[in-house]
């Protein structure tokens, strides 16, 4: 892979706190290596800002290996930037070329208010999990792990759904600000496993109710969420969510 250096223009959303209005500010960066990660490019910019006596740009990040789900930048109109199935922290500067202008915004959604600059509040996701994203099994209650055999395909599908990192890119990219992919992934994981059976109906009803309460929008099947999901979570999980929700609704009505 050829290495190169580039000069860039960055337009970054700056917002002091959740109460004040924000705006895009422009920064010039010189000599950025194509081997840097996107967040390392932000490190360089922040170091420059501090040396210049300015306040650095606040952004969320932690593991920098694509699994914690904390990083969350809207880059040139795409959640997590141009690469497919990729988080912001895994995006590398070889995705850009000398002279590029890059616009970076926070996740934009009613349910994810901006806290500062590029940092948003995603606690709504935690509250959705609190509403039912679990199996009620106290520590010590479990039977032997091999007591229940699980069809490998179901187990694999459950794993694929469970791979969601809770970053919120699906919400940020959806024109309706819908959290259906996030909720569908968790509902699917637990619906596919026999352990999730007893709470299957209450889970989906409660999680959807909480999702609505948090102000997330509805799904209109544009599939943008799947396209931007860094873990490639399939929209078939939304289909399963809808079917689980319908079945649960009918079943509880008849009870």
């Amino acid at each position, binding site marked *: *892979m050829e290495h190169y250096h580039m000069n860039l223009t960055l337009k970054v959303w700056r917002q002091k706190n959740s109460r004040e209005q924000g705006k895009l500010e422009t920064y010039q960066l010189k000599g950025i*290596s194509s081997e840097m990660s996107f967040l390392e490019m932000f490190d360089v910019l922040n170091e420059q800002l501090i040396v210049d006596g300015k306040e650095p740009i*606040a952004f969320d990040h*932690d593991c920098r290996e694509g699994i914690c789900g904390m990083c969350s930048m809207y880059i040139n109109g795409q959640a997590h930037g141009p*690469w497919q199935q990729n988080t912001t922290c895994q995006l590398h500067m070889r995705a850009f070329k000398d002279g590029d202008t890059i616009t970076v915004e926070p996740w934009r959604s009613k349910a994810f208010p901006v806290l500062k600059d590029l940092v948003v509040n*995603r606690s709504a996701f935690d509250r959705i999990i609190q509403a039912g*994203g679990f*199996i009620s099994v106290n520590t010590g209650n479990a039977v032997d792990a091999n007591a229940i055999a699980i069809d490998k395909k179901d187990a694999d599908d459950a*794993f694929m759904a469970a791979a969601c990192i809770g970053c919120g890119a699906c919400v940020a990219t959806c024109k309706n600000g819908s959290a259906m992919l996030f909720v569908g992934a968790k509902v699917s994981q637990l619906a596919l496993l026999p*352990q999730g059976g007893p709470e299957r109906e209450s889970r989906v009803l409660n999680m959807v109710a909480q999702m609505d309460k948090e102000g997330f929008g509805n799904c209109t099947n544009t599939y943008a969420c799947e396209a931007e999901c860094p873990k490639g979570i399939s929209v078939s999980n939304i289909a399963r969510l809808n079917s689980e929700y319908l079945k649960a609704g009918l079943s509880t009505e008849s009870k």
Partner: protein
Amino acid sequence: MALDSKIPHGEMDKKWTDYKGHVKLVNPANKRKLEVIVVGTGLAGASAAASLGEMGYKVKAFCFQDSPRRAHSIAAQGGINAAKNYQNDGDSVFRLFYDTVKGGDYRSREANVHRLAEVSTSIIDQCVAQGVPFAREYGGLLSNRSFGGTQVQRTFYAAGQTGQQLLLGAYSALERQVALGNVKMYTRHEMLDVVKIDDKARGIIAKDLISGELESHFGHAVLLCSGGYGNVFYLSTNAMGSNVTAAWKAHKRGAFFGNPCFTQIHPTCIPVSGDHQSKLTLMSESLRNDGRIWVPLKKEDSRNPKDIPENERDYYLERRYPAFGNLVPRDVASRAAKERCDEGYGVGTTKMAVYLDYKDAIVRFGKIEAGKSGNDNVSHEEIVALGKKVVEEKYGNLFKMYEKITGENPYETPMRIYPAVHYTMGGLWVDYELQTTVKGLYALGEANFSDHGANRLGASALMQGLADGYFVIPYTLGNYLADEIHTNSISTDHPAFAEAQKAVSDRLNTLINIKGKQTVESFHKRLGKIIWDKCGMARSEKGLNQAIEEVRALKKEFWSDVRIPGEINSFNLELDKAGRVADLIELGELMCLDALDRNESCGGHFREESQTEDGEAKRDDENYAYVAAWENKGDSNWELHKEELSFDIVKPTQRSYK
């Protein structure tokens, strides 16, 4: 102060059962009145907070991230060990215990390790019940794989995302307790001090990272589950936010720090590419199951690896350690890579890398797949294509990650890897009950020192975090809290809270008012370089003495020239980072002191003065079979206490993986 490890009497395999049978209990009505603070929500913290909430305690849990699900346990890739013996390959609690004590190079406490091996099986049961989607075989039962340092298949896994799935299991249990009102969760909060009243831990000072405001929180007991301190090296596989602050504040308040120099350098990480590097990425150790590690036989060979014929390659692990080959423990594999690179056989632009090659594995898997079809006339290309598919199924996400970072396709070109800091075996000294030297203050998971000795085996960190949280602390904490049922909640107006809060506030004010010229990041980088060069994979008396001087000078410079922009009562990430780096600097000094004291080589701690003729680590059981527990006596001042280790079951021998 004499250290009392409180190891129960009796036979090794009965200690934990006997302990549980006689431990004090707290009745349900009293549990409701007892408050417990849990700092950190990784595997240890989330599992502890959830379990204690289920039992009826009033729990407050804290994490600095925006959600408990982000804790760095999430990044663990390879797997979790358990002595289930589902593979019928001779595994048992005893073997897991034995392997862990041996793997830790005889510097861990036998009784703790035995308990860990005992509860390992319940962890898998619990996780499966929570809906953790472990890998399964076609029959629907759980799949296992082998891991470095062992000869049985006892590792349970969920592709290369085992830590993520286990943490999400513990996180969901935690959120369930939040919904039930048993746990109150404080996200984007950082613990900045422990509050002691009458020599007992009674709460913490925490900072709301959004508003910048300080808060006092009371607890009848405080559990630190705040992870390790690998970021003292600046470059490590830890998350950017991972830090030692909670443990360090506890240390400053009287908790002894155990074996700080025991740090683990993981052999298979993606090498450093330049000065801009902010962190290193691990490639799971499971890759060593099927990949082969080599360097060219010729020095400074810069040919494309594909053009280097078989007979000009040095599979140095297979050569040096025929019995374990590429599966030697981490410390051995790391040092062997360093040795080859130091001798001039390294590869890649920096020459600080070795190859991890899947060429042979792809052909091997391909032949097996071709054999299944019963067709004998399968071309080499078809075999390779079939083999790649198998490799993708087993390691696809890791290969993808490698390609994203390096831009190279590891199915075609061997991966370049180099050791990097990954885990810290040292941590707060705890007794058998996981209590530190401060009453009512506990340390769980990577934050304590107890189970891995001088080297941790692969897939054992997840096991220990969950063992401590799900199956140890629920018993041992009750033994302490049973005597606290008459202690009413103490108001945070108590002078001890006010004093601690003022001290924290003063420190933050001092930091932000230094208004120097250098950034926090630049100090952190310099600290990392000192520690990596002189207290990294090889350590010597001369280097360590130099490092101590350099760290002290760096500390002085930091406190007179650091620049922190922004305001104190606001969302100020630089101020948060400055506090963490200040603590890491102090810890760095202690690490070097500890490494200097321990003039032997054991596990991940390699003293150049103590090696065999062929360059293997040489332990000194006569003089160093102890846990070094350091007591802080003020600025740059520590007193060493020793907990002598006895090995009643696993008799120390020089480790050999040949």
